[in-house]
């Protein structure tokens, strides 16, 4: 968060102002603190840094899961393979489109809900808890329910369409309907969570600004645009970045949507990068290629976050001008 708001870190600020204590005393005082934060860094090193480096190492080899002890050095061949691999680019495109059609409506709706829940209304606590329920539902359970709804043979949605004399839709086999169905699972699960984040941000907006706006004759919409949105900017940027990362790693929904098969539909119509990585490594046995995909995903996510930040900063600068 400190990098996002682009303010100097709080710790620095304080230490600059405070008069320096003698060096020895300082180091003695912080020694216990280091010991207490050690477990986190031990776990972090074991479960993040080590796998991270090991994945990079494996991605430079031809390795199969079944014969894991036999590594053959192939240099960047796995990465070259990916660049010309249409399964990779298909998964990349699907990840982008699924990300857009799930994250954009999700954040917009969440913002609207947060705005409504910020008003005084009866049973506010109930609604605040209720919107978080989907987030607390297990992914598998949610996907199974949505599968039933969207089933082309026995689903209630196609039944409703038919009753209304509309054409039935193949929510499984056709590309865009299938992606829409998966995006709806994601949206359903995460909207409440984002609404809660936005709500927290909203409550930090100075109420006097609303009063002042009222005095200036601003209506609800004008207040939303000119007070709420600018006040929420850091929260919105945070939510966008978190959902960008989440979208890029989309995995469980498309896996379960095809009955647990990692191919993302018979025409790979909703295969994501995360799913492709799993298919390459655990179904197709090719750990080297899967590791290369993992690292490519890491770079792609990093680029996406940097682009997000650059856009946010440019807008900020323009607003400041």
């Amino acid at each position, binding site marked *: 968060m400190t990098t996002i708001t682009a303010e100097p870190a709080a710790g620095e600020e304080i230490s600059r102002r405070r008069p320096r204590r003698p060096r020895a005393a300082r180091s*003695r005082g912080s*020694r*216990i603190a280091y*010991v*207490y934060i*050690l*477990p986190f860094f*031990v*776990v972090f090193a074991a479960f993040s840094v080590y796998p991270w480096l090991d994945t990079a190492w494996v991605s430079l080899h*031809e390795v199969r*899961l*079944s*014969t*894991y002890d036999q590594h053959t050095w192939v240099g960047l061949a796995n990465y070259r393979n990916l660049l010309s691999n249409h*399964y990779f680019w298909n998964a990349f495109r699907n990840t982008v489109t699924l990300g857009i059609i799930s994250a954009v409506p999700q954040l917009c709706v969440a913002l609207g809900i947060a705005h409504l829940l910020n008003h005084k209304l009866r049973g506010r606590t109930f609604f605040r808890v209720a919107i978080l329920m989907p987030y607390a539902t297990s992914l598998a359970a949610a996907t*199974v329910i949505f*599968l*039933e709804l969207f*089933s082309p*043979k*026995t689903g209630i949605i196609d039944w409703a369409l038919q009753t209304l004399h509309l054409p039935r839709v*193949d929510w499984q*086999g056709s590309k865009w309907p299938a992606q829409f169905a998966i995006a709806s699972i994601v949206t359903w699960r995460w909207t409440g969570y984002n609404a809660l984040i936005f709500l927290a941000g909203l409550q930090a907006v100075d109420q006097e600004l609303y009063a002042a706006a009222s005095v200036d004759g601003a209506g609800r919409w004008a207040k939303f645009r000119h007070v709420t949105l600018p006040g929420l900017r850091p929260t919105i940027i945070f939510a966008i970045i978190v959902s960008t990362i989440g979208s890029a790693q989309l995995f469980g929904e498309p896996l379960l949507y095809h*009955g*647990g*098969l990692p*191919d993302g539909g*018979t*025409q790979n119509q909703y295969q994501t990068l995360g799913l492709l990585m799993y298919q*390459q490594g*655990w*179904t*197709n*046995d*090719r750990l080297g290629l899967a590791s290369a995909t993992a690292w490519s995903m890491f770079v792609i996510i990093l680029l996406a976050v940097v682009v997000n930040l650059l856009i946010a900063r440019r807008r900020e600068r323009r607003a400041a001008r």
Partner: protein
Amino acid sequence: MRLRGTRRRTAASMLALVTAGALSLAGCGSSSSDNSSDNAGGGSASAGPCGTTKPTTLTVGLYGTFGFKENGVWDAYKKACPNITIKEDDVEQSADYWTKLKTRLASGSGLDDVQGIEIGFVGDVVQNHANQFVNWNKVANAAADKAEFYDWKWSMASTADGSDTVGLGTDTGPQTMCYRSDLFKQAGLPTDTATLTKDFSTWDGYLALGKQYEASTTKPANSHFVDTVNSIFNAAVYQGTEAYDNTSNQPDVEKSDGVKNAWSIATQAAQDKLSAGLTQWVPDWNKAFSSGTFATVACPAWMMGYIQGQAGDAGSGKWAVAPVMPGGASNWGGSWLGVPTASKNQPAAIALVEWLSNKANQVTMWTAKAQGGHWPSNQQAAADPSVGQATSAYFGNAPVGKIYGQIAGSMKIPPIGQFDTQIQSLINAQLTNVETKGTSPDSAWSAALDAVKQVTG
């Protein structure tokens, strides 16, 4: 004062370090295996028929329904060996189970005392992990064990030179077709054994029946002849001299006669619109066993159990077993039980697996009341009169012992390969495109080969 302060701080940081260490150790401590293990390893003669006389818990890793619990086999073992407690570690789908097992074999930890091995990955286990399983050629009863099984069953679980065998057989999958006799009657199709024996003897005859079914005006609306053309493909592919691998253990999808033949029959059925276009092993498919969405399904012996599970009591007398298999006798599926060398209870695990695969138990598995369709891989059991004479009340009193017995006795067994499971699922996806999306068989075929290359590398 100062000195004391420092010392107290040192003590405090030591304490913190110990606390931190204890916290991180607690995470690792609980995963070690059961307490009362017998570390004999080689198997001592004095340990008796149960492999050990000490109280021992054996974990058994399985997938799907092996039926040991359902058919009372575990209870029987509890009586024979009261000191042994059996704990099943179940995964529903064999593909998920294999992923898990592969990971555990690669890391060499987390393995159960007994692991189920399915035909879809026994090739991989034999080729890459034979040294991680007890070699059944080297156990005390090796010769007697080997004599029990169909030769092909034993050699599928053995290395090419036959020196290393990773598991003892449980069931096998002699296959025919199952059909809904009530829907056949309703659609005006023949239901008498003599005519069906003739019609079901070739794939052409089967497809002709299908066309007749689809053209019928009296069949239920939304009902189709076969669940999916994958039912046809997966059954027919093992009728070739090759399935997915050639005789030298190399994936050979493009040139395999089994694949070519099965592909042409399946795409023919798709273009004749004989299928309901369902995906196997998903809820929609499961429901269709009772709803009548399809009238036939490929029926390896074990499918009898699956049908009863899905169609329930209401399906009794509706489903029937075809007297012959179109295109010739062949096998789909079947399993083995292996004992990882990492097991700390090897002698007890070996004793259990030998007991499970003996004649009496394999006879029980087939003739038990539940009739889960576990056709014996133990040939002495298969030859037992009670097995051959078994009929199934659920399947309209069909002489299932005779039908599956004849098929099991004359099966052609193509070589199996390391990637059979993966290749089959990729080809199935493309056949689904042909039957539901109208993809041309030619472009589906090249997409299938393209996808297979992602596996074989």
